[in-house]
Each structure stands twice: as structure tokens, then as C-alpha cells.
């Protein structure tokens, strides 16, 4: 408590110009940066999986299972930074029990549950049900129990039942794509609908969030796939990774154009808030916006991936490039969230000044805590990949399609 106040006095000494006295403290810190970042990874990974299933892009097959499990791992963690950020975390359930329907945030619980329970879990369940039953027969002990429990003690693996699984899984995927769009577009709306804040209040916010989410999710799955194949010492499926990289290029391009449009629009209409935002962008946000998000996260990946569209070096080199580019994009999108969430609070709503933001190493809002919430999904993913290895699934799955 006193430490917090001490910190605020330190910030007060760094205030530039005038900010309302209540604005010296940044209300949403790094945990709220993580929240759109993590949900974005979920939505993006899921959309990549859906591409394979709905549009029958079989070249993406090696990443289908990985994408779904990645989405689930991050989805399970998505609410944690949010809840731990609350002033009264023990009251978090109120948002579900007594939602205030005019609040964009109140709907989050429902969108989240819909996406987690109805879409992700169901799709994964239908996809793995037969395999879980088969694996239960091949294993013993705890693993066997887990397979039985997760398959809800079902035993029917007749072709008819499996065909039904596939059919239902397909339907869930079709529902899933708009749901993924909803989930992340909605997260953008939470920010875009705040008319008090000119840095957030743009109708493009949900669309920008959505496309950046797809970009980050695809980059993550690509990275996870490359790492897993390296760990398993297998040959990487290059046509698959090349295809993912080309999608990544096009969607990153759309994302770049949308964000560019947003900025050009701001500059051209130059509303009352223009000066304060202009100084913000070239001042306190310069490094994270132009260097981290712009150069490292967007321009370098765009140029590299663009070049790879018509010039293909050797597989080993391509693999290394893809690994680095995926990592750069993930860093870039993280800073995109940072620039929205933190950037939107660095200037005063009086448009007369700026506060500053300093983050500590420890504490609930520190770097370590943030790193923790980013590492946990990978631990969950490792567990899920151990329990449900997509590469051990009986193939031919999606060939038995609905019609």
C-alpha cells in the first residue's frame, strides 16, 4: 500500500503538462495488455484450425490438432489476468450472475463461456472421442482413467458413431468461426466503445483487433509446430508451413492496411485530440509503436514473408526464417496490445498532458506475473500434447465428411 503510494509520487514527478489528479495512476496495467493478447492467440489459432476443416485445406492437416490444443491452452488462461487484476477478485462471479447488459464487459463472461464450452471443447471432444476410446484400451493406470473420463465413458467407435462425431464436429466448426470472430471483435469493442478516450474510440478497433488476433494466432501455431517437430526430430512438412506463412503474409498485410487506415483517418480529420495523440505517438509511445510494433512486428515480417512468396531459399533457411518471423510477429502483436492499452492511458483526457508508466519486476502487476501468465498456457499445452498427441491420432478422420 505505502509502496503503491510511493510509486504514485514517483509517477507524479514525471507527469508532463497537466493531467486530472485521478489520472496519475494507470488503471489498466500489463495484465490487461495480456488479456487481449491471449484471447487473440486463441481466436487466431482456432481460425487456422477451422480453415483446414471447413475449406478442406488438407495441406494444413499437420497443424490442425496443434492449433486446436493451442487455442484451448490459452483459452483456459485467458480470464486469469483479468480476474487477478480486479480490485475485488472474489466478486468476479457477479459479472456472470448479475450482468449489466449495457456494459460491453458484462457480455465477456458469456462470449467466453460460449466459445470455451460450446465451441472449443465440443470440437476437440468430437475430434478426439474415438481416439480417446482407442487409447484407453492401449494404456493403463491414470492415463487410461483420464482417457475414459474425458471421453465421458463412451465406448462406441462404430463407423456410424465416428461419422456422427465428424458431422457434429464439422457443424461446431462452422459455428466456431463466427464465434471466434465474435470473441475477438468483441474484445476490440470493449476498447473501441469508450468515447471518452480518443485513442481507443474508433469503429475500426474491433476489426483491427480481429485481424491482429488472427495474425498472432497463426504465427503462434506455426512456431509451436516448428518447435514440436524439431523436438520430435521429425522432418518438417514444408508445404504446410509455406502455406501458413503465405496466409500469415496476407492477413498481416490486411492488418497493416487497417491500422494504417485508422492512423491516416486520425491524421486527416485531426480532431480536438490530435495534438495530444501526435505528441504521444512521437514521445512516450515512440519505441513501442514505431520500433517494436511497426518495424519489428510488422515491416520486417511483411518484407520477409513477401519476398518468400516468390523467392524460396533452401528448406533449412526457410525454416529458420519462419521461426524468427513468427517470433517477431508475436512480439509485435504483444506491443500492439501494449500500445492500445497502455498508450490509451498515458495521455490525459484533458488533452493537456501525459502521465508515465513504470512496471516493477515483482508484485501482482509486475513483469514476473505477466511472464507467469504467458508461460502457464505452454505448460498446459505440453500436458495436452502429451495426453492428446495429434500425431498419434488415427488418420482419415476428416475424410469421412458430412456430404
Amino acid at each position, binding site marked *: 500500500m505505502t509502496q503503491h503510494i510511493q510509486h504514485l509520487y514517483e509517477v507524479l514527478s514525471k507527469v508532463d503538462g497537466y493531467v486530472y489528479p485521478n489520472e496519475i495512476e494507470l488503471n489498466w496495467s500489463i495484465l490487461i495488455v495480456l488479456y487481449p493478447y491471449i484471447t487473440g492467440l486463441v481466436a487466431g489459432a482456432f481460425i487456422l484450425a477451422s480453415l483446414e476443416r471447413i475449406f478442406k485445406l488438407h495441406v494444413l492437416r499437420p497443424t490442425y490438432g496443434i492449433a486446436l490444443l493451442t487455442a484451448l491452452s490459452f483459452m483456459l488462461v485467458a480470464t486469469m489476468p483479468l480476474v487477478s487484476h480486479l480490485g*475485488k477478485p472474489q466478486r468476479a462471479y*457477479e459479472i456472470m450472475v448479475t450482468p*449489466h*447488459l449495457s456494459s460491453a464487459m458484462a457480455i465477456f463472461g458469456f462470449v467466453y463461456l460460449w466459445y470455451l464450452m460450446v465451441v472449443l471443447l465440443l470440437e476437440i471432444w468430437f475430434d478426439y472421442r474415438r481416439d480417446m476410446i482407442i487409447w484407453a484400451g492401449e494404456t493403463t493406470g491414470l492415463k487410461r482413467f483420464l482417457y475414459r473420463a474425458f471421453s465421458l465413458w463412451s465406448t462406441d467407435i462404430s463407423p456410424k458413431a465416428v461419422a456422427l462425431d465428424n458431422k457434429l464436429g464439422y457443424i461446431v466448426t462452422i459455428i466456431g468461426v463466427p464465434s471466434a470472430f465474435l470473441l475477438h471483435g468483441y474484445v476490440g469493442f470493449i476498447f473501441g466503445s*469508450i468515447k471518452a*478516450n480518443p485513442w481507443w474510440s474508433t469503429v475500426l478497433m474491433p476489426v483491427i483487433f480481429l485481424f491482429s488476433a488472427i495474425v498472432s494466432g497463426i504465427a503462434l501455431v506455426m512456431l509451436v509446430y516448428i518447435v514440436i517437430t524439431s523436438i520430435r526430430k521429425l522432418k518438417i512438412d514444408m508445404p504446410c508451413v509455406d502455406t501458413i506463412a503465405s496466409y500469415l503474409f496476407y492477413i498481416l498485410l490486411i492488418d497493416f492496411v487497417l491500422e494504417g487506415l485508422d492512423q491516416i483517418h486520425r491524421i486527416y480529420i485531426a480532431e480536438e485530440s490530435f495534438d495530444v495523440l501526435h505528441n504521444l505517438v512521437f514521445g512516450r509511445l515512440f519505441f513501442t509503436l514505431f520500433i517494436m510494433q511497426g518495424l519489428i512486428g510488422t515491416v520486417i515480417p511483411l518484407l520477409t514473408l513477401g519476398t518468400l512468396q516468390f523467392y524460396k531459399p533452401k528448406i533449412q533457411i526457410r525454416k529458420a526464417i519462419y521461426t524468427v518471423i513468427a517470433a517477431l510477429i508475436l512480439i509485435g502483436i504483444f506491443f500492439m496490445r501494449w500500445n492500445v492499452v497502455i498508450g490509451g492511458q498515458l495521455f490525459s*483526457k484533458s488533452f*493537456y498532458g501525459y502521465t508515465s508508466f513504470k512496471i516493477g519486476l515483482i508484485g501482482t502487476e509486475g513483469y514476473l506475473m505477466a511472464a507467469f501468465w504467458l508461460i502457464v498456457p505452454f505448460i498446459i499445452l505440453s500436458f495436452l500434447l502429451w495426453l492428446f498427441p495429434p500425431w498419434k491420432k488415427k488418420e482419415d478422420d476428416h475424410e469421412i465428411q458430412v456430404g
Partner: protein
Amino acid sequence: MNINKPNLSRRDFFKAGSIIVGGITVATALTPFDGLLFATEPPKGKGKWYGIGIDINKCIGCGNCAKACKLENNVPKDPFYFRSWVEQYTIKNDGSVLVESPNGGIDGFKQSVPDEEIFKSFFVPKMCNHCAKSPCVQVCPVGATFETPEGIVLVDENYCIGCRYCVQACPYGCRFINPEKGTAEKCTLCIHRLDKGMQPACFEMCPTEARIFGDLNDPGSKINYFLKNHTCMVIKPNLNTGSKLFYNALSPEVR
């Protein structure tokens, strides 16, 4: 004679009927989503409907209002938490604007700009605007912040989850999170005093009567007299928050 009867079979009748009945049912079920139209709703007050007036010409920047508010409402003493504060605007000859509010104006003000450089200078007391279409009420995910029938925006601290969305949504910077309670806090227009027939603390302590409040629904009220006899403005009218804090002599520099 051949009468042209509309060709309506029983099947068509049930079809049309079920569409109408179903439509009405769905529309009824969707009524709660009226909430989404929040910011376009007209004010509902029929009884007392409080509004506030501040006469900038009368404010001398003594900071009594901000001090009284802190004492009366047990607001944390550190200079990061204010329900009510005073800003000093100094417009220089070159047109640049300097805004200051050291410790919310509680300790008074010192003019930091030499006299010969000043075009004009004035004080602006700030507090919750008790908006009729409050963005803070709109965004609260649990409904912990609400508007009383008298038009006072309050926070139920036993219900607030401390998500800070309302703090982000307030265009006027009037909310903060109480560092001890972890919940949102703001001006209550001293409702505990109003209930006893007293004035809010900041109004009572103002030595120049720069602050007026009263019932906007009562044509004879002080606030209506104030509004009729002065050219009043709200801050950030473009945001359509339905602000009920009206300033006389508000300069366009004030935000």
C-alpha cells in the same frame, strides 16, 4: 358469381400466425437488450432531478471545496484521489494554455507565470457531472454504479468488483479506485447530507457562493434561476453524456 377469395389455406394461416406470435415472443425476450440503447435514452426523473451550477466568475481558487470534500467523505489524503478539485487555467499572451492543480487546489494556488505574460487566468472547480447518460453507468459490468431517481450517480461499494472500466469511461476524470477498498469511488453529491436537508460539503464551504445546486424539475429552483440568467455550458458537450454540471463563463480552453 365468382368471388376472388384470397387463397389462404389452413397451413398458410398457421404459418403466418406462428411467425407473428414467434416474432412478438422474440421481441419481448430481447427487451433487456434495450440497455444497449443506453446513451440515447431520455432522462427519466419526474420528482427531484438535481443539477449543479458553477460560476467561474465567482471562484477565487481558495480550494475550500476540495478540502471539505476530502474531510467530509474520508477521501484518501494523497494527491491522487479526488472527488472534487480545482484547476487554475492561465492563458498566456502567446495563446498557450497552462493548467495547474497542485494537490487539487486544497493548499491554494500560486501563479507561476509572470503577470506581464498573462492574457487571462481563472479557476475551474471540477467534480462529478452526474450525467443523465453516464458513460460510467453504461459500462459497469455488474450494475454497481447507478443513477438514483434524483439523478445522482452513485457506486455501491459492496457490489463493485473493481474492474476500473468506469474509471476509463469517465471523460472528466472524476473517478478513482480507493486504494484501501479496491472499489470505485466518486462524488455522491453528499447524498448523506442531502438526506438530512443539508447542502453538499463543497457547496457549504464555498465562500463566494460560486456553487449552486437544485432541482431542475422545479421552475422556481435556484439552479433554474442560475441557468436562466447566465450563459451556461457543460464540459465536452460533444460527448453527449447528458452532463448536469453547468458552468457560467466557461472558456473553450477548459476540458
